[in-house]
């Protein structure tokens, strides 16, 4: 059946229309869908592909057409439901007396007088001003916005320090304050481990692993990725550390970051001397020399940070002993690949997970290139044209301009999966899936079709293709961890229990 929905004088931006179009096409049984303005030329296209109806023919230039062709009524109804769900809320007029969404920090405070934290997510150039307003009102601040200058960041953090308020960010994607997840965050057990992290998915991975090991989290404070640069001086990592050292619910503290500037590291280590709680430091790619003369425990992998923290928190050793009981016969898997299938491709949604994978893999392969690499010889020159071992962080700006982040809308990764399958030198595709607040409601579900397609492409050329995946999520995340896992298992995807394990599987098979 086919039908068209006409919205008179309605306009939605093209990203919304594209996203709607792709979501409708993903509905089982939907054969074709076109969402566009009802201009003559667009109507002509509908006629050419057999989607035109009397309603669409009668629509005017300024009307929106949603044309759907489906195998049966159920599929059509499901597509229709999606259209209503995705387009209706935006233009919904408030009823008289219904509370309007606040447009300013002042009006938000009028509605919620006891609020003590503001999440700022506005274009970068306005973000600093809004954050400043929030600080002046005595609110802690989490800045999801990026494109804030270093000078502005420094000024905001200095104001925060002076007022005893946290300034998490800019470009802070993850926090969990009093077990309330902000932006992207997993649902985890409440406990006695407090974390300060300068990386989004790094913080998520440590929280998830703590939960899986039987521990719990008191606070997860994000600082934004630039906090430990010389220009900012680690102000929020130090303030976060102090806050956790005062927090009665926190007994063990974990700090996560890429290696800080030396002068900043010195300040942090100095501050740790004043903390009478155990501190675990995880500086991915950090220098072992730094361990000297510090009472902190140094680890270099996210999983290790979680494990050490759970050990120090005094609980749940039984859970720790259960770890890594899964066994994957990599020797057998190796036999599935042809000799020329000697490369892996990592398609990541989480930036820190991608960086950690690079840090692990570089020691086992002659060359690994990535768009998150800092070393010149590891930098990927062209994200669309490469060969060899490659790790891509698909959440980087170069992929996301004009599109949602792949943790929100994973379809960005789908065509990459099938593209990699066409490369006869690729043996393994490594992927991450993030669950939790803020993430897509069914990240595996939207990806599974592409995994099947990729395997078919490889099979049609007489090859096998191995998929290795890690799901960064907990059993209490809203997306149903087990359901997500089952879908991958049914497609023969190897599932690791941590990012480090996923990466090690790749090494065992290919190195």
């Amino acid at each position: 059946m086919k039908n068209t929905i006409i919205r008179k004088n309605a306009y939605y931006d093209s990203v919304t229309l594209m996203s709607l179009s792709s979501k409708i096409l993903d509905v089982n049984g939907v054969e074709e869908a076109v969402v566009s303005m009802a201009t003559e030329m667009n109507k002509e296209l509908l006629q050419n592909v057999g989607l035109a109806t009397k309603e669409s023919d009668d629509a005017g230039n300024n009307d929106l057409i949603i044309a759907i062709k489906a195998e049966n009524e159920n599929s059509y109804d499901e597509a229709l439901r999606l259209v209503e769900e995705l387009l209706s809320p935006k233009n919904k007029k408030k009823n008289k007396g219904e509370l309007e969404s606040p447009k300013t920090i002042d009006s938000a405070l009028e509605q919620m007088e006891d609020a003590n934290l503001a999440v700022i997510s506005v274009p970068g150039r306005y973000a600093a001003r809004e954050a400043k307003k929030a600080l002046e009102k005595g609110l802690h601040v989490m800045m999801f916005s990026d494109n804030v200058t270093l000078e502005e960041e420094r000024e905001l953090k200095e104001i925060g320090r002076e007022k005893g308020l946290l300034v998490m960010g800019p470009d802070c994607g993850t926090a969990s304050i009093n077990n309330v997840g902000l932006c992207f965050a997993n649902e985890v057990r409440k406990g006695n481990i407090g974390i300060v992290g300068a990386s989004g998915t790094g913080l998520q991975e440590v929280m998830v692993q703590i939960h899986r090991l039987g521990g719990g989290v008191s606070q997860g404070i994000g600082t934004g990725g630039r906090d430990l640069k010389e220009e900012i001086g680690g102000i929020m990592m130090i303030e976060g550390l102090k806050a956790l050292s005062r927090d009665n619910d926190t007994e063990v503290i974990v700090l996560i970051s890429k290696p800080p500037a030396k002068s900043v590291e010195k300040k942090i280590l100095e501050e740790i001397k004043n903390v009478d709680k155990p501190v675990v430091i995880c500086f991915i790619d950090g220098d072992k020399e730094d361990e000297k003369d510090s009472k902190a425990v140094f680890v270099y992998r996210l999983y290790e940070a979680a494990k050490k923290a759970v050990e120090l928190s005094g609980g749940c050793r039984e859970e720790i002993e259960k770890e890594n009981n899964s066994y994957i016969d990599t020797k057998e898997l190796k036999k599935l690949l042809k000799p020329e299938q000697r490369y892996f491709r990592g398609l990541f949604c989480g930036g820190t997970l991608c960086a950690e994978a690079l840090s692990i893999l570089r020691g086992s392969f002659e060359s690994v290139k990535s768009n998150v690499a800092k070393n010149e010889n590891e930098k990927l020159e062209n994200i669309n044209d490469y060969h060899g071992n490659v790790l891509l962080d698909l959440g980087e700006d170069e992929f996301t301009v004009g599109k949602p982040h792949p943790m929100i809308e994973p379809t960005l990764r789908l065509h990459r999966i099938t593209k990699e399958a066409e490369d006869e030198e690729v043996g393994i595709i490594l992927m991450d899936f993030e669950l939790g607040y803020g993430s897509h409601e069914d990240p595996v579900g939207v990806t599974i079709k592409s995994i099947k397609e990729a395997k078919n492409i490889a099979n049609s050329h007489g090859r096998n293709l191995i998929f290795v995946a890690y799901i960064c999520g907990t059993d209490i995340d809203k997306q149903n961890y087990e359901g997500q896992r089952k879908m991958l298992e049914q497609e023969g995807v190897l599932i690791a229990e941590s990012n480090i394990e996923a990466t090690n599987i790749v090494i065992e098979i290919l190195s």
Partner: protein
Amino acid sequence: MEKDEYEIISFSAYAYDKHFIEFFNENKNLKEVGKIHSIYSRTINFLDNKDNMYTIGSKNIDNSPFTLRIDNRNISFEDLDLEEGNRLFKIDNSLIIEDKVRIDLESNCILWNPNVEKRRDLNRNLIMENIGYFNDFILKKGSNGGCRYFYLENFLKVKAYTPGLIEKELSRRIEVFLDALEDGNIDEVKINSLIGFGIGLTPSGDDFLTGFLSVLNIISTDYSNKIKRKLINLIDIDKIATTDVSKQMLSITLRGESREYILSFINGFLDEDKKQFLLFLERLLNIGSSSGTDLAVGVVTAFILLTNNFNMEE
């Protein structure tokens, strides 16, 4: 933004262009001067009593013909309780929309009056070099859904993603249009197949043509003038079928005018400052959702056509 005692939200005008001055002058003695046509987040459009369309926008849009920018970056017009058909009044030195919004026309407003200098001497190597920078950029950035697929597929021979139905068809139509221009057999049908085609309020085909024609408005060589004449003669603005907002955009372009970000990008193409060029490109790409990319592809395609036909100037 202030609320006065009658709950009218007041703004100050920040900048406008010569068409707005003409509009003010023509409407000196009239109280009701127009009606709201459409309302978006960062702009509202209104029609004057002769059905000419004007735009009122926030400060963070670029200058454009027939556009007034108010001195407020954060305003969302959609939140101002305005409705299509609301009347505009000019009272003293203010534009008033019903009893809801007042815009004061301060004497210190900026008059945006770009000096569109015709460029006759083209440096082919410089243009080629800038096309190279654009190619690197568009590989990594730019929005899908419109002309990006055409550019990647045809000029860069890259299949970066699986295109939608409209992108594929748009790509074919642009190819037909360019082939016809090269072969000298361009006609009304081939141009009109682009107009109104594509998603978005300004369909991608319109954005492409706007970018393309804007280059021909600035570059003045024998070849560019020849194809510009042909195209202008073939487009009948009164007959084209596209959205009202897009029709206004094309109509402005056919008059030889362009918005600020298109002009600066085209001029950036002809100057040697690479940093400026990339800044102008980035600003252009940020227009709308996919419009900026479609406009930029139109501009660059025109430059490619001109450089391919460079010998015709000799």
